[in-house]
């Protein structure tokens, strides 16, 4: 007789030749809040996807719920019946439908004869769950009218709908990410009531603060392995967890220690508001300088690249380069390109490259107007540019005619990078350039970013990877939720993590 609510052992997952989870185990006790933390790419989301049946685990895994063996790969119906429910990051709520509909979806009660939905019962069910959670929301309200906290509560209510009090596991997959800080306390109160009944909660989160405040125990993943198994949170600090998440600091040697304060400023951003209500952000990028921007998800650091390049309109802010000034609240991509800003977006599949077109076509795209006349665009320069890029970034491909979809992730990223280098920008803005690429490609990309900077281009690098940041950045700006900024000059990833996770404590930064 086991005493665990959820017991997963020997969880491994291999994609092609990459092992993203390696013999992970985690054990969730009844009535506890168990946190699962790790960096981006550490395998947290893969774990959740195995538990929900989206991914098939490698052979050898065993999963039990209250001692009952669960058949693998997970069948969603079976595991729901056994009491597992999930609240995803986006909560999966439909704004134009009522709270009762959102809670009821997937398990509507139908009337006997006509098989139509019995709304009276449906409302009663919703009301019962909401009462149980002590949430004051009218089941008839459309979800779109609710605030972030109420929405999260409705998400939880849906997860609890079919569970008997005191049983089951709720998996929260970054579900608290959208909540404002002051509301978290109330939401945590709700979770504590849920576990007090005996239900378990498995929360996947970025927020170490939240882990300490809420979780009883924590499992920490790094590169697909468990580095801290079911640790009691009472004996931990945020720094302890951050160190475990990051492991030994990787390759932090090559950062150039250069004094760039006498170099000309190539771009200055002033009064940039990432989200209404946040303090404005100002920054200057000097020629040859690599400036990092980071922070917790939700601090707005991840939108900075899109705002300064005109890809998205900012509530307020302006950009000045030698080529002119752009009002970021009005300007668009064309204006920013003209000012010399090139954006390398994060989602190469969606925003970066046309996958059904060739390397040559993709690299040539931003230059077509400049290099061609109205009625003729030559092919020769396109081939030359593409071959140059393939050579310079050592892109592994048979020819420049190969379609992007045939390349590996790292090589796609290199093509994306080459595409924007080819416009000879004054400032190159990058968002997570090393995401989902292998170690070798990462090194190639980081080296070429440095080479670009050495040629006099200013680089703005927005990234959630402290390893990348300390390796190449001259200075790093850490954003916090209220918009305040801490500046670091360091080559220790631990310092960055500390600043990221420790927003409240001002860290001594170097001179600007």
């Amino acid at each position: 007789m086991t005493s665990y609510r959820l017991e997963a052992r020997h969880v491994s997952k291999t994609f092609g030749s990459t092992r993203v989870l390696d013999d992970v185990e985690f054990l969730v006790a009844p009535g506890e809040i168990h946190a699962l933390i790790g960096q981006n790419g550490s395998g947290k989301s893969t774990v959740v996807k195995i538990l929900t049946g989206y991914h098939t685990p490698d052979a050898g895994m065993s999963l039990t719920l209250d001692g009952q063996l669960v058949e693998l790969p997970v069948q969603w119906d079976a595991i729901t019946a056994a009491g597992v429910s999930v609240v995803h990051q986006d909560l999966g709520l439909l704004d134009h439908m009522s709270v009762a509909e959102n809670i009821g979806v997937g398990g509507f009660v139908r009337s006997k004869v006509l098989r139509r939905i019995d709304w009276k019962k449906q409302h009663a069910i919703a009301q019962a769950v909401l009462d149980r959670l002590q949430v004051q929301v009218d089941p008839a309200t459309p979800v779109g009218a609710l605030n972030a906290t109420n929405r999260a509560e409705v998400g939880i209510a849906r997860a609890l709908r079919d569970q008997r009090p005191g049983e089951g596991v709720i998996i929260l997959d970054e579900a608290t990410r959208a909540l404002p800080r002051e509301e978290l306390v109330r939401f945590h109160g709700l979770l504590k009531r849920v576990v007090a009944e005996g239900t378990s909660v498995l929360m996947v989160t970025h927020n170490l603060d939240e882990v300490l405040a809420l979780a009883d125990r924590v499992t920490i993943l790094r590169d697909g392995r468990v580095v801290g198994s079911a640790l009691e949170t009472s004996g931990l600090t945020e720094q302890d967890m951050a160190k475990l998440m990051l492991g030994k600091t990787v390759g932090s040697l090559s950062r150039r220690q250069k004094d760039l304060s006498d170099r000309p400023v190539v771009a200055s951003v002033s009064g940039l508001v990432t989200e209404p209500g946040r303090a404005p952000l100002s920054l200057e990028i000097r020629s040859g300088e690599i400036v990092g921007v980071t922070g917790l998800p939700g601090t707005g650091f991840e939108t900075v690249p899109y705002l300064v390049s005109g890809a998205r309109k900012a509530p307020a802010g302006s950009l000045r380069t030698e080529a002119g000034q752009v009002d970021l609240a009005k300007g668009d991509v064309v204006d920013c390109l003209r000012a010399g800003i090139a954006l390398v977006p994060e989602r190469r599949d969606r925003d970066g490259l046309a996958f059904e077109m060739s390397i040559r076509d993709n690299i040539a795209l931003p230059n077509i107007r400049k290099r061609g006349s109205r009625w003729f665009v030559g092919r020769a320069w396109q081939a030359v540019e593409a071959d140059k890029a393939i050579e310079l970034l050592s892109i592994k491909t048979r020819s420049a005619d190969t379609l992007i979809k045939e390349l590996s992730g790292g090589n796609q990223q290199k093509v994306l990078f080459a595409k924007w280098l080819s416009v000879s920008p004054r400032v190159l803005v990058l968002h997570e350039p090393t995401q989902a690429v292998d170690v070798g490609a990462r090194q190639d990309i980081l080296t070429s970013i440095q080479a670009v900077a050495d040629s006099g281009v200013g680089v703005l690098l927005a990234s959630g990877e402290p390893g990348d940041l300390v390796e190449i950045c001259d200075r790093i700006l850490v954003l916090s939720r209220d918009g305040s900024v801490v500046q670091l000059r360091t080559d220790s990833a631990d310092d960055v993590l500390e600043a990221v996770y420790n927003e409240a404590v001002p860290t001594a930064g170097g001179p600007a």
Partner: protein
Amino acid sequence: MNPEPSSDSAAVRLSSDEDVTGRIISDSGEHAEASEPPTRVTLRSQYEPKWLHTLTSKYALVLVWAAMALVYYILMPHSFGSIGAVRAIFGGQPVLVFLAMSALITLLVAEFDLSVASIMGLAATIVPVLAGLHGVNVWVACLIALVACMGAGAINAFFVVYLDVSSFVVTLGTGTLLIGLSQWISASNVVSFQDDLFSKIALQPFLGMPVSFWYGIGLALFIAYVLAYTPLGRHMLFVGANREVARLAGIRVNGIRTGAYIVSSLLAGFSGIILVSALGGFDSTSSGQFLLPALAAVFLGTTVVQPGQFNPIGTMIAIWFLWTGIFGLQLLGFAGWVQNVFYGAGLVVAVALAKVVRSRSKTA
């Protein structure tokens, strides 16, 4: 984190959902690209000469076409082998050529335009009604028809591009609406109009073919040139392939989409004029019959010349292919129903083939 959703390659989005599945995995697993598909080294790929590979991968449709023509020739050496038959196959479909090019232009930028046939019908109604019934100069009538067509295109663009309504729904609606308008203008009669000079713009023989055949060739070559060698054409391809990528590269995506609708409607208008010129009249209720052959040709065209991409030369070949098939069957004595069967089956097979061809193509 990222704003509005974007589109993917026109051909992909319109004919399959394979790409979507790929994206779901890469969103989540973060390692979707980690596994490179193993390169298959088969005896065939090793010993197949390059020209043969090109022929089988890029021009398979031409081979099938040749085989089909051969079969017909063997069955009917006299009727199918005559110069008249050749002329009928290549020169018999000038209207379809213009209409297919019209549909091609919107499909290239990943938009549907189901109203092209109705727009063509509008032009083919306005010209004989104005010139024949109201005594307006025929060239003025043509001009008015073309302006009306461009207006219809602009209306499509307004709803689709600026109000962001599904192009499928909008053009289905405007298409039906325009058929109705045409019926109203013509009082649901077949309006005819005869003028020697006017009929020459379609039927005047030139180098052994009706001149409208050469218009079609010229148009296809022109579109092919624009797509391959002008900034506009390259930008159109990217708008079709991935709208967000195009926008982030500083392309005025909405301008290109709007332009595509208007130019497409203009071409549809030209096809209407050629139709009236060649036939001397038009039945406004019949425009709907022209849509499917045009779409079938455009989709079948994606299997040839530039496999996996909408392309004008491929569309021409597809038109000839489809028409050869129908023509031969008609010579063999099959009645008019065979046309619908052939075009209908052609569309489904074309889209299925296009999907297979695209997933196999590795280079541009």
